[in-house]
Protein backbone atom coordinates (compact mmCIF):
# COMPACT_ATOMS: atom_id res chain seq x y z
CA UNK A 1 0.00 0.00 0.00
CA UNK A 2 2.84 2.35 0.89
CA UNK A 3 4.39 1.78 -2.52
CA UNK A 4 1.14 2.72 -4.21
CA UNK A 5 0.79 5.90 -2.16
CA UNK A 6 4.35 6.81 -3.17
CA UNK A 7 3.50 6.25 -6.83
CA UNK A 8 0.34 8.34 -6.53
CA UNK A 9 2.25 11.34 -5.27
CA UNK A 10 5.20 10.79 -7.60
CA UNK A 11 3.05 10.71 -10.73
CA UNK A 12 0.59 13.41 -9.63
CA UNK A 13 -2.43 11.16 -9.98
CA UNK A 14 -4.69 13.79 -8.43
CA UNK A 15 -3.59 16.30 -11.08
CA UNK A 16 -4.15 13.74 -13.81
CA UNK A 17 -7.63 13.03 -12.45
CA UNK A 18 -8.30 16.77 -12.50
CA UNK A 19 -7.08 16.88 -16.11
CA UNK A 20 -9.56 14.14 -17.04
CA UNK A 21 -12.36 16.17 -15.42
CA UNK A 22 -11.28 19.34 -17.27
CA UNK A 23 -11.20 17.51 -20.62
CA UNK A 24 -14.68 16.11 -19.91
CA UNK A 25 -16.21 19.47 -18.96
CA UNK A 26 -14.74 21.51 -21.84
CA UNK A 27 -15.24 18.72 -24.36
CA UNK A 28 -18.83 18.29 -23.19
CA UNK A 29 -19.61 21.99 -23.54
CA UNK A 30 -18.04 22.11 -26.99
CA UNK A 31 -19.89 18.99 -28.10
CA UNK A 32 -23.19 20.40 -26.82
CA UNK A 33 -22.75 23.66 -28.76
CA UNK A 34 -21.61 22.08 -32.05
CA UNK A 35 -24.07 19.21 -31.70
CA UNK A 36 -27.04 21.54 -31.17
CA UNK A 37 -26.07 23.49 -34.28
CA UNK A 38 -25.75 20.31 -36.32
CA UNK A 39 -29.12 19.08 -35.01
CA UNK A 40 -30.75 22.37 -36.06
CA UNK A 41 -29.14 21.98 -39.50
CA UNK A 42 -30.56 18.45 -39.75
CA UNK A 43 -34.18 19.54 -39.25
CA UNK A 44 -33.93 22.83 -41.17
CA UNK A 45 -36.25 23.52 -44.11
CA UNK A 46 -33.24 24.20 -46.32
CA UNK A 47 -31.81 21.29 -48.29
CA UNK A 48 -28.20 22.49 -48.28
CA UNK A 49 -28.13 22.83 -44.49
CA UNK A 50 -29.70 19.38 -44.10
CA UNK A 51 -27.03 17.87 -46.31
CA UNK A 52 -24.28 19.58 -44.33
CA UNK A 53 -25.73 18.26 -41.07
CA UNK A 54 -26.21 14.72 -42.37
CA UNK A 55 -22.75 14.72 -43.93
CA UNK A 56 -21.16 15.90 -40.70
CA UNK A 57 -22.82 13.19 -38.63
CA UNK A 58 -22.06 10.38 -41.09
CA UNK A 59 -18.43 11.37 -41.59
CA UNK A 60 -17.52 12.07 -37.98
CA UNK A 61 -19.45 9.18 -36.44
CA UNK A 62 -17.74 6.62 -38.65
CA UNK A 63 -14.18 7.85 -38.09
CA UNK A 64 -12.25 6.51 -35.08
CA UNK A 65 -11.66 9.11 -32.37
CA UNK A 66 -7.96 8.17 -32.42
CA UNK A 67 -7.74 9.37 -36.02
CA UNK A 68 -9.61 12.60 -35.27
CA UNK A 69 -7.30 13.38 -32.34
CA UNK A 70 -4.26 12.72 -34.56
CA UNK A 71 -5.70 14.84 -37.30
CA UNK A 72 -5.95 17.88 -35.04
CA UNK A 73 -2.69 17.30 -33.19
CA UNK A 74 -0.32 16.17 -35.95
CA UNK A 75 -2.14 17.48 -38.99
CA UNK A 76 -3.54 20.84 -37.98
CA UNK A 77 -1.12 21.73 -35.18
CA UNK A 78 2.19 20.26 -36.36
CA UNK A 79 1.87 20.25 -40.13
CA UNK A 80 -0.23 23.36 -40.66
CA UNK A 81 1.19 25.16 -37.60
CA UNK A 82 -2.18 26.46 -36.47
CA UNK A 83 -1.70 27.22 -32.80
CA UNK A 84 -4.33 27.78 -30.14
CA UNK A 85 -1.91 28.92 -27.48
CA UNK A 86 0.53 31.78 -26.96
CA UNK A 87 3.73 30.58 -28.65
CA UNK A 88 5.85 32.66 -26.26
CA UNK A 89 4.54 31.10 -23.06
CA UNK A 90 6.59 28.31 -21.45
CA UNK A 91 3.63 25.91 -21.42
CA UNK A 92 2.58 26.53 -25.02
CA UNK A 93 3.12 22.91 -26.13
CA UNK A 94 1.06 21.45 -23.30
CA UNK A 95 -1.63 24.12 -23.73
CA UNK A 96 -1.83 23.48 -27.45
CA UNK A 97 -2.15 19.73 -27.01
CA UNK A 98 -4.82 20.18 -24.36
CA UNK A 99 -6.81 22.67 -26.45
CA UNK A 100 -6.66 20.66 -29.66
CA UNK A 101 -7.57 17.59 -27.62
CA UNK A 102 -10.68 19.39 -26.40
CA UNK A 103 -11.49 20.42 -29.98
CA UNK A 104 -11.15 16.80 -31.15
CA UNK A 105 -13.36 15.52 -28.32
CA UNK A 106 -15.96 18.22 -29.05
CA UNK A 107 -16.03 17.58 -32.78
CA UNK A 108 -16.32 13.81 -32.34
CA UNK A 109 -19.02 13.78 -29.68
CA UNK A 110 -21.00 16.55 -31.35
CA UNK A 111 -22.23 13.99 -33.86
CA UNK A 112 -23.64 11.85 -31.04
CA UNK A 113 -25.17 14.91 -29.37
CA UNK A 114 -26.83 15.80 -32.68
CA UNK A 115 -28.26 12.29 -33.02
CA UNK A 116 -29.49 12.35 -29.41
CA UNK A 117 -31.22 15.68 -29.98
CA UNK A 118 -32.77 14.46 -33.18
CA UNK A 119 -34.22 11.46 -31.37
CA UNK A 120 -35.41 14.01 -28.79
CA UNK A 121 -37.11 16.04 -31.51
CA UNK A 122 -38.85 12.82 -32.57
CA UNK A 123 -40.33 12.46 -29.07
CA UNK A 124 -42.13 15.81 -29.47
CA UNK A 125 -45.64 15.14 -30.77
CA UNK A 126 -46.56 16.41 -34.21
CA UNK A 127 -49.33 18.53 -32.67
CA UNK A 128 -46.78 20.73 -30.88
CA UNK A 129 -45.14 21.72 -34.15
CA UNK A 130 -48.52 22.22 -35.77
CA UNK A 131 -49.71 24.40 -32.88
CA UNK A 132 -46.54 26.47 -33.09
CA UNK A 133 -47.12 27.07 -36.78
CA UNK A 134 -50.81 27.75 -36.19
CA UNK A 135 -50.05 30.72 -33.93
CA UNK A 136 -47.82 32.10 -36.66
CA UNK A 137 -44.35 31.16 -35.46
CA UNK A 138 -41.89 30.64 -38.27
CA UNK A 139 -39.20 27.93 -38.29
CA UNK A 140 -36.61 29.36 -35.88
CA UNK A 141 -38.99 30.69 -33.20
CA UNK A 142 -41.02 27.48 -33.21
CA UNK A 143 -37.79 25.51 -32.95
CA UNK A 144 -36.20 27.55 -30.17
CA UNK A 145 -39.33 28.19 -28.11
CA UNK A 146 -41.47 25.09 -28.61
CA UNK A 147 -39.57 22.16 -30.04
CA UNK A 148 -35.99 22.30 -28.72
CA UNK A 149 -36.87 22.83 -25.03
CA UNK A 150 -39.02 19.69 -25.17
CA UNK A 151 -36.47 17.87 -27.33
CA UNK A 152 -33.72 18.51 -24.76
CA UNK A 153 -35.93 17.07 -22.06
CA UNK A 154 -36.71 14.05 -24.19
CA UNK A 155 -33.04 13.57 -25.09
CA UNK A 156 -31.64 13.59 -21.56
CA UNK A 157 -30.96 9.83 -21.42
CA UNK A 158 -28.99 9.64 -24.70
CA UNK A 159 -27.23 12.91 -23.83
CA UNK A 160 -26.20 11.34 -20.51
CA UNK A 161 -24.88 8.31 -22.39
CA UNK A 162 -22.88 10.65 -24.61
CA UNK A 163 -21.41 12.43 -21.60
CA UNK A 164 -20.40 9.12 -19.99
CA UNK A 165 -18.82 8.00 -23.26
CA UNK A 166 -17.02 11.34 -23.50
CA UNK A 167 -15.63 10.88 -19.99
CA UNK A 168 -14.20 7.51 -20.99
CA UNK A 169 -12.96 8.76 -24.35
CA UNK A 170 -10.83 11.49 -22.74
CA UNK A 171 -8.26 8.70 -22.34
CA UNK A 172 -7.59 8.79 -26.09
CA UNK A 173 -6.12 12.28 -25.72
CA UNK A 174 -3.21 10.74 -23.80
CA UNK A 175 -1.78 9.81 -27.22
CA UNK A 176 -0.86 13.42 -27.86
CA UNK A 177 0.83 13.82 -24.51
CA UNK A 178 -1.94 15.31 -22.40
CA UNK A 179 -1.12 14.12 -18.90
CA UNK A 180 -4.48 12.68 -17.96
CA UNK A 181 -5.09 9.58 -15.98
CA UNK A 182 -4.39 6.83 -18.51
CA UNK A 183 -1.15 8.60 -19.50
CA UNK A 184 0.02 8.38 -15.91
CA UNK A 185 -1.27 4.82 -15.66
CA UNK A 186 1.09 3.84 -18.45
CA UNK A 187 4.01 5.58 -16.72
CA UNK A 188 3.23 4.05 -13.34
CA UNK A 189 2.99 0.50 -14.68
CA UNK A 190 6.24 0.84 -16.60
CA UNK A 191 7.93 2.19 -13.49
CA UNK A 192 6.65 -0.52 -11.15
CA UNK A 193 5.12 -3.49 -12.96
CA UNK A 194 4.74 -5.41 -9.71
CA UNK A 195 1.84 -3.10 -8.80
CA UNK A 196 -0.02 -3.79 -12.06
CA UNK A 197 -3.30 -4.86 -10.44
CA UNK A 198 -3.34 -2.10 -7.84
CA UNK A 199 -2.69 0.57 -10.48
CA UNK A 200 -5.37 -0.80 -12.78
CA UNK A 201 -7.89 -0.91 -9.95
CA UNK A 202 -7.00 2.63 -8.92
CA UNK A 203 -7.59 3.97 -12.46
CA UNK A 204 -10.71 1.86 -12.96
CA UNK A 205 -12.18 3.11 -9.68
CA UNK A 206 -11.43 6.70 -10.72
CA UNK A 207 -13.60 6.17 -13.79
CA UNK A 208 -16.33 4.35 -11.88
CA UNK A 209 -16.40 7.30 -9.48
CA UNK A 210 -16.69 9.71 -12.42
CA UNK A 211 -19.24 7.85 -14.52
CA UNK A 212 -21.60 6.24 -12.01
CA UNK A 213 -22.89 9.51 -10.47
CA UNK A 214 -23.26 11.09 -13.92
CA UNK A 215 -25.22 8.07 -15.15
CA UNK A 216 -27.40 8.04 -12.04
CA UNK A 217 -27.98 11.81 -12.23
CA UNK A 218 -29.06 11.65 -15.86
CA UNK A 219 -31.33 8.68 -15.23
CA UNK A 220 -32.94 10.64 -12.39
CA UNK A 221 -33.19 13.80 -14.53
CA UNK A 222 -34.71 11.98 -17.47
CA UNK A 223 -37.47 10.70 -15.20
CA UNK A 224 -37.84 14.01 -13.38
CA UNK A 225 -37.83 16.28 -16.43
CA UNK A 226 -39.56 14.07 -18.96
CA UNK A 227 -42.48 15.92 -20.49
CA UNK A 228 -45.63 14.46 -19.00
CA UNK A 229 -47.87 13.37 -21.82
Amino acid at each position, binding site marked *: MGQLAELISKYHVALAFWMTIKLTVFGGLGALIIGTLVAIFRVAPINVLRWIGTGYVNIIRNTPLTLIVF*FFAFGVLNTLNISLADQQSPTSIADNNFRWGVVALSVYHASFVAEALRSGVNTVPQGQAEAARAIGLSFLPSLTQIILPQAFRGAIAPLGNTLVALTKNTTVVSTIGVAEISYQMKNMIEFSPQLLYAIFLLVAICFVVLTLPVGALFTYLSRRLAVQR
Partner: protein
Amino acid sequence: MTAPTTVLFDAPGPKARVRHLIIGIVGLVVLLLILGLVIRGLANPRNNQLTAEKWSPFLQPSTWLDYLLPGLLSTLKAAGLAIVLSLVFGILLGIGRLSKIRVVSMVSGVFVEFFRSVPVLVMMLFAYYFALYVLHLASNQPFFGVVVGLVFYNSSVIAELIRSGVGSLPSGQREAGLAVGLTEGQAMWSILLPQAITAMLPSLISQLVVVLKDTALGYIIGYYDLVRGGQTFSTNFGNLIPTMLVMAAMFIVINYALTRIAQGVEHSLQRRGRAGGQPDESLPGELTQPPVVAQL
Protein backbone atom coordinates in the same frame (compact mmCIF):
# COMPACT_ATOMS: atom_id res chain seq x y z
CA MET B 1 -35.01 11.79 -49.34
CA THR B 2 -38.14 10.95 -47.40
CA ALA B 3 -40.05 13.64 -45.58
CA PRO B 4 -38.73 14.47 -42.11
CA THR B 5 -40.66 12.76 -39.32
CA THR B 6 -41.77 15.95 -37.60
CA VAL B 7 -42.41 18.69 -40.06
CA LEU B 8 -41.42 21.84 -38.23
CA PHE B 9 -42.21 24.22 -41.04
CA ASP B 10 -45.02 24.95 -43.43
CA ALA B 11 -44.75 24.29 -47.12
CA PRO B 12 -42.77 27.36 -48.19
CA GLY B 13 -44.53 30.06 -50.17
CA PRO B 14 -42.87 32.07 -52.94
CA LYS B 15 -41.15 34.50 -50.52
CA ALA B 16 -39.91 31.72 -48.27
CA ARG B 17 -38.67 29.74 -51.25
CA VAL B 18 -36.56 32.69 -52.31
CA ARG B 19 -35.32 33.10 -48.75
CA HIS B 20 -34.45 29.41 -48.49
CA LEU B 21 -32.63 29.60 -51.79
CA ILE B 22 -30.62 32.59 -50.56
CA ILE B 23 -29.79 30.96 -47.22
CA GLY B 24 -28.93 27.75 -49.03
CA ILE B 25 -26.55 29.54 -51.36
CA VAL B 26 -25.01 31.45 -48.44
CA GLY B 27 -24.54 28.16 -46.57
CA LEU B 28 -22.92 26.58 -49.59
CA VAL B 29 -20.63 29.59 -50.05
CA VAL B 30 -19.59 29.50 -46.38
CA LEU B 31 -18.87 25.78 -46.68
CA LEU B 32 -16.81 26.34 -49.83
CA LEU B 33 -14.98 29.23 -48.11
CA ILE B 34 -14.03 26.98 -45.19
CA LEU B 35 -12.89 24.28 -47.60
CA GLY B 36 -10.95 26.91 -49.54
CA LEU B 37 -9.20 28.09 -46.39
CA VAL B 38 -8.28 24.51 -45.52
CA ILE B 39 -6.94 23.93 -49.01
CA ARG B 40 -4.97 27.16 -48.85
CA GLY B 41 -3.55 26.07 -45.52
CA LEU B 42 -2.56 22.75 -47.06
CA ALA B 43 -1.04 24.39 -50.11
CA ASN B 44 0.97 26.83 -48.02
CA PRO B 45 4.56 26.51 -49.35
CA ARG B 46 6.02 25.79 -45.90
CA ASN B 47 4.09 22.56 -45.55
CA ASN B 48 2.75 21.85 -48.97
CA GLN B 49 0.43 18.88 -48.68
CA LEU B 50 -1.23 19.18 -52.07
CA THR B 51 1.60 18.51 -54.46
CA ALA B 52 1.61 15.46 -56.67
CA GLU B 53 4.53 13.94 -54.77
CA LYS B 54 2.43 13.84 -51.58
CA TRP B 55 -0.53 12.20 -53.28
CA SER B 56 1.03 10.09 -56.02
CA PRO B 57 2.27 7.38 -53.60
CA PHE B 58 -1.37 6.34 -53.28
CA LEU B 59 -1.28 5.27 -56.91
CA GLN B 60 1.60 2.88 -56.32
CA PRO B 61 0.67 -0.70 -55.47
CA SER B 62 3.47 -0.94 -52.88
CA THR B 63 1.77 1.67 -50.70
CA TRP B 64 -1.31 -0.48 -50.44
CA LEU B 65 0.40 -3.85 -50.37
CA ASP B 66 3.10 -2.96 -47.84
CA TYR B 67 1.34 -0.53 -45.49
CA LEU B 68 -2.35 0.17 -45.78
CA LEU B 69 -3.81 -3.24 -46.61
CA PRO B 70 -1.78 -5.17 -44.01
CA GLY B 71 -2.82 -2.51 -41.51
CA LEU B 72 -6.45 -2.82 -42.51
CA LEU B 73 -6.19 -6.60 -42.39
CA SER B 74 -4.83 -6.61 -38.85
CA THR B 75 -7.50 -4.09 -37.81
CA LEU B 76 -10.19 -6.37 -39.23
CA LYS B 77 -8.53 -9.43 -37.69
CA ALA B 78 -8.52 -7.94 -34.20
CA ALA B 79 -12.05 -6.57 -34.58
CA GLY B 80 -13.38 -9.87 -35.95
CA LEU B 81 -11.85 -12.00 -33.22
CA ALA B 82 -13.01 -9.51 -30.59
CA ILE B 83 -16.62 -9.49 -31.79
CA VAL B 84 -16.80 -13.30 -31.92
CA LEU B 85 -15.38 -13.66 -28.41
CA SER B 86 -17.58 -10.81 -27.17
CA LEU B 87 -20.64 -12.57 -28.53
CA VAL B 88 -19.77 -15.78 -26.69
CA PHE B 89 -19.02 -14.06 -23.37
CA GLY B 90 -21.82 -11.54 -23.84
CA ILE B 91 -24.42 -14.29 -24.24
CA LEU B 92 -23.09 -16.08 -21.16
CA LEU B 93 -23.06 -12.85 -19.13
CA GLY B 94 -26.51 -11.83 -20.33
CA ILE B 95 -27.94 -15.19 -19.35
CA GLY B 96 -26.03 -14.94 -16.09
CA ARG B 97 -27.74 -11.65 -15.32
CA LEU B 98 -31.13 -13.20 -16.02
CA SER B 99 -30.33 -16.28 -13.94
CA LYS B 100 -32.68 -17.28 -11.17
CA ILE B 101 -29.68 -18.08 -8.97
CA ARG B 102 -29.03 -14.95 -6.92
CA VAL B 103 -25.23 -15.33 -6.73
CA VAL B 104 -24.80 -15.79 -10.48
CA SER B 105 -26.92 -12.78 -11.39
CA MET B 106 -25.19 -10.60 -8.77
CA VAL B 107 -21.70 -11.51 -9.99
CA SER B 108 -22.63 -11.03 -13.65
CA GLY B 109 -24.30 -7.72 -12.81
CA VAL B 110 -21.26 -6.36 -10.99
CA PHE B 111 -18.95 -7.57 -13.77
CA VAL B 112 -21.05 -5.93 -16.49
CA GLU B 113 -21.47 -2.63 -14.66
CA PHE B 114 -17.77 -2.46 -13.78
CA PHE B 115 -16.44 -3.13 -17.26
CA ARG B 116 -18.91 -0.75 -18.84
CA SER B 117 -17.55 2.14 -16.81
CA VAL B 118 -13.86 1.41 -17.46
CA PRO B 119 -12.59 2.99 -20.70
CA VAL B 120 -11.55 0.54 -23.40
CA LEU B 121 -8.09 2.09 -23.57
CA VAL B 122 -7.49 1.47 -19.86
CA MET B 123 -8.55 -2.16 -20.33
CA MET B 124 -6.22 -2.46 -23.32
CA LEU B 125 -3.29 -1.02 -21.38
CA PHE B 126 -3.96 -3.42 -18.53
CA ALA B 127 -4.27 -6.45 -20.83
CA TYR B 128 -1.12 -5.44 -22.70
CA TYR B 129 1.00 -5.13 -19.56
CA PHE B 130 -0.62 -8.28 -18.20
CA ALA B 131 0.58 -10.15 -21.29
CA LEU B 132 3.99 -8.54 -20.91
CA TYR B 133 4.70 -8.92 -17.19
CA VAL B 134 2.44 -11.73 -16.00
CA LEU B 135 2.00 -14.11 -18.93
CA HIS B 136 5.45 -13.27 -20.35
CA LEU B 137 4.19 -13.69 -23.90
CA ALA B 138 7.14 -13.73 -26.26
CA SER B 139 5.32 -11.92 -29.04
CA ASN B 140 1.93 -10.54 -30.01
CA GLN B 141 1.42 -8.77 -26.67
CA PRO B 142 -0.23 -5.81 -28.46
CA PHE B 143 -2.61 -8.13 -30.28
CA PHE B 144 -3.51 -9.81 -27.00
CA GLY B 145 -4.00 -6.39 -25.40
CA VAL B 146 -6.28 -5.09 -28.16
CA VAL B 147 -8.48 -8.18 -28.32
CA VAL B 148 -8.80 -8.70 -24.57
CA GLY B 149 -9.49 -5.01 -23.96
CA LEU B 150 -12.20 -4.99 -26.62
CA VAL B 151 -13.73 -8.26 -25.40
CA PHE B 152 -14.13 -7.16 -21.77
CA TYR B 153 -15.95 -4.00 -22.72
CA ASN B 154 -18.02 -5.29 -25.63
CA SER B 155 -19.14 -8.49 -23.95
CA SER B 156 -20.59 -6.27 -21.22
CA VAL B 157 -22.43 -4.22 -23.85
CA ILE B 158 -23.71 -7.34 -25.63
CA ALA B 159 -24.81 -8.79 -22.29
CA GLU B 160 -27.02 -5.73 -21.84
CA LEU B 161 -28.36 -6.12 -25.39
CA ILE B 162 -29.22 -9.78 -24.73
CA ARG B 163 -30.85 -8.87 -21.44
CA SER B 164 -33.06 -6.19 -22.96
CA GLY B 165 -33.74 -8.45 -25.96
CA VAL B 166 -35.00 -11.25 -23.73
CA GLY B 167 -36.88 -8.69 -21.65
CA SER B 168 -38.69 -7.38 -24.74
CA LEU B 169 -40.12 -10.80 -25.62
CA PRO B 170 -43.72 -11.53 -24.63
CA SER B 171 -43.84 -13.45 -21.35
CA GLY B 172 -46.00 -16.10 -22.99
CA GLN B 173 -42.93 -17.40 -24.82
CA ARG B 174 -41.26 -18.58 -21.63
CA GLU B 175 -44.50 -19.86 -20.15
CA ALA B 176 -45.29 -21.86 -23.28
CA GLY B 177 -41.84 -23.41 -23.09
CA LEU B 178 -42.40 -24.37 -19.45
CA ALA B 179 -45.88 -25.65 -20.31
CA VAL B 180 -44.55 -28.19 -22.80
CA GLY B 181 -42.23 -29.49 -20.12
CA LEU B 182 -38.95 -27.65 -20.76
CA THR B 183 -36.86 -26.59 -17.80
CA GLU B 184 -36.06 -22.89 -17.26
CA GLY B 185 -32.65 -23.38 -18.85
CA GLN B 186 -33.99 -25.25 -21.86
CA ALA B 187 -36.65 -22.60 -22.41
CA MET B 188 -33.96 -19.91 -22.27
CA TRP B 189 -31.58 -21.63 -24.71
CA SER B 190 -34.04 -23.01 -27.21
CA ILE B 191 -36.87 -20.44 -27.17
CA LEU B 192 -35.92 -17.08 -25.68
CA LEU B 193 -32.31 -16.69 -26.72
CA PRO B 194 -32.71 -17.36 -30.47
CA GLN B 195 -35.51 -14.82 -30.63
CA ALA B 196 -33.59 -12.29 -28.57
CA ILE B 197 -30.53 -12.59 -30.81
CA THR B 198 -32.66 -12.22 -33.94
CA ALA B 199 -34.30 -9.15 -32.47
CA MET B 200 -30.97 -7.65 -31.40
CA LEU B 201 -29.23 -8.37 -34.71
CA PRO B 202 -29.27 -4.73 -35.91
CA SER B 203 -27.78 -3.53 -32.63
CA LEU B 204 -25.16 -6.26 -32.79
CA ILE B 205 -24.12 -5.15 -36.28
CA SER B 206 -23.99 -1.56 -35.05
CA GLN B 207 -21.73 -2.75 -32.26
CA LEU B 208 -19.33 -3.98 -34.94
CA VAL B 209 -18.86 -0.35 -35.97
CA VAL B 210 -17.94 0.53 -32.38
CA VAL B 211 -15.48 -2.38 -32.22
CA LEU B 212 -13.84 -1.39 -35.50
CA LYS B 213 -13.41 2.20 -34.36
CA ASP B 214 -12.04 1.11 -31.00
CA THR B 215 -9.50 -1.16 -32.67
CA ALA B 216 -7.73 2.04 -33.70
CA LEU B 217 -6.89 2.50 -30.00
CA GLY B 218 -4.52 -0.44 -30.45
CA TYR B 219 -2.14 2.06 -32.03
CA ILE B 220 -1.41 3.34 -28.54
CA ILE B 221 -0.14 -0.02 -27.27
CA GLY B 222 1.88 -0.58 -30.42
CA TYR B 223 -0.49 -2.79 -32.35
CA TYR B 224 0.26 -2.60 -36.06
CA ASP B 225 -3.22 -1.55 -37.17
CA LEU B 226 -4.35 0.64 -40.05
CA VAL B 227 -3.49 3.88 -38.25
CA ARG B 228 0.00 2.66 -37.35
CA GLY B 229 0.58 1.42 -40.89
CA GLY B 230 -0.53 4.73 -42.34
CA GLN B 231 1.69 6.69 -39.99
CA THR B 232 4.72 4.53 -40.75
CA PHE B 233 4.08 5.03 -44.44
CA SER B 234 3.59 8.80 -44.17
CA THR B 235 7.00 9.32 -42.58
CA ASN B 236 8.56 8.25 -45.91
CA PHE B 237 6.88 10.99 -47.90
CA GLY B 238 5.99 13.60 -45.26
CA ASN B 239 2.37 13.30 -46.39
CA LEU B 240 0.64 12.81 -43.06
CA ILE B 241 -2.51 14.75 -43.89
CA PRO B 242 -3.24 13.00 -47.21
CA THR B 243 -2.62 9.64 -45.51
CA MET B 244 -5.00 10.52 -42.69
CA LEU B 245 -7.68 11.52 -45.18
CA VAL B 246 -7.26 8.24 -47.06
CA MET B 247 -7.42 6.22 -43.82
CA ALA B 248 -10.47 8.13 -42.61
CA ALA B 249 -12.15 7.43 -45.95
CA MET B 250 -11.41 3.71 -45.56
CA PHE B 251 -12.94 3.64 -42.07
CA ILE B 252 -15.94 5.70 -43.14
CA VAL B 253 -16.73 3.47 -46.11
CA ILE B 254 -16.56 0.26 -44.05
CA ASN B 255 -18.51 1.64 -41.10
CA TYR B 256 -21.13 3.35 -43.21
CA ALA B 257 -21.69 0.09 -45.10
CA LEU B 258 -22.08 -1.75 -41.77
CA THR B 259 -24.57 0.86 -40.55
CA ARG B 260 -26.61 0.51 -43.72
CA ILE B 261 -26.57 -3.29 -43.39
CA ALA B 262 -27.81 -2.94 -39.81
CA GLN B 263 -30.63 -0.68 -40.99
CA GLY B 264 -31.53 -3.10 -43.79
CA VAL B 265 -31.67 -6.03 -41.34
CA GLU B 266 -33.83 -3.94 -39.03
CA HIS B 267 -36.30 -3.12 -41.81
CA SER B 268 -36.54 -6.74 -42.92
CA LEU B 269 -37.12 -7.80 -39.30
CA GLN B 270 -39.82 -5.16 -38.96
CA ARG B 271 -41.50 -6.46 -42.10
CA ARG B 272 -41.51 -9.92 -40.56
CA GLY B 273 -42.85 -8.37 -37.37
CA ARG B 274 -39.90 -9.49 -35.25
CA ALA B 275 -38.19 -6.23 -34.55
CA GLY B 276 -36.44 -6.06 -31.22
CA GLY B 277 -36.81 -3.43 -28.57
CA GLN B 278 -34.17 -0.77 -28.34
CA PRO B 279 -31.59 -1.32 -25.61
CA ASP B 280 -32.78 0.21 -22.36
CA GLU B 281 -31.99 3.91 -22.70
CA SER B 282 -32.00 4.51 -18.96
CA LEU B 283 -28.79 2.54 -18.48
CA PRO B 284 -25.77 4.79 -18.25
CA GLY B 285 -22.81 3.69 -20.25
CA GLU B 286 -21.81 3.23 -23.83
CA LEU B 287 -22.90 4.96 -26.97
CA THR B 288 -25.19 2.54 -28.61
CA GLN B 289 -26.21 3.69 -32.02
CA PRO B 290 -29.22 5.94 -31.57
CA PRO B 291 -32.59 4.52 -32.54
CA VAL B 292 -32.96 4.58 -36.28
CA VAL B 293 -35.17 7.53 -37.10
CA ALA B 294 -36.39 8.36 -40.54
CA GLN B 295 -33.48 9.39 -42.70
CA LEU B 296 -33.63 13.06 -43.60
